[in-house]
């Protein structure tokens, strides 16, 4: 399945892009992260949360194929 992943802040600095579309054959966010850690080794040391369809999800959440995002620590206000 084709999924879109958005990157923000510190995370976008590591991935060197704000967004990408990938072809993903796994099931869970854990598998997606394994893939991303291979592609971007520096991600492993970074603090972030995963959002799916604009809601934070656990690492073992099932990927449903819509919008994903890697969010570094919030700094609003």
């Amino acid at each position, binding site marked *: 399945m084709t999924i879109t992943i958005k990157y923000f*802040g510190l995370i976008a600095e590591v991935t060197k892009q704000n967004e990408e579309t990938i072809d993903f054959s796994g099931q869970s966010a854990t598998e997606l992260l394994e893939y991303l850690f291979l592609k971007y080794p520096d991600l492993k040391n970074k603090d972030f949360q995963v959002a799916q369809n604009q*809601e934070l999800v656990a690492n073992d959440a099932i990927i449903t194929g819509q919008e994903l995002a890697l969010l570094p620590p919030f*700094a*609003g206000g």
Partner: protein
Amino acid sequence: MSDKKIKNVFKQGAISSEFIGESIAKHQTKTSIGAHNIFLGQVRADIMDGKTVSAIEYTAYEDMANAKFHDIREATFEKFELTCMHIYHSLGTVKAGEICLFVFVSSPRRKVVFKALEYIVEEIKAQVPVFGKEIFEDDTHQWKVNN
């Protein structure tokens, strides 16, 4: 979540003192209000390792952030008896000393505004995906983290 339309909370650049003054003035026709409480977040010229922060550059996961602001708004109106509530957050560059967050609550009576305002600000800090790049005077940067 209610059917109400999700507002755009973001403003490009700093929030001016004139804008805040005008927002206050607009409430003077609402004569059931007895108490206003306003929170302003201001960018600090923090010094780290001898370098001074000159500005913060804000970015956000805008759709999710506006949805979260909307949820916070709805939850606040459920919890507290408020007449009105306004939230504005900056995107882009806000210099040290300038205002990046403006939260404004109003109610007939005072007790509720203190609790409501603190609740909103803490929820914003914890729930809303806004990111802040602290720019130092020598153009290096670091990423801000809320505590």
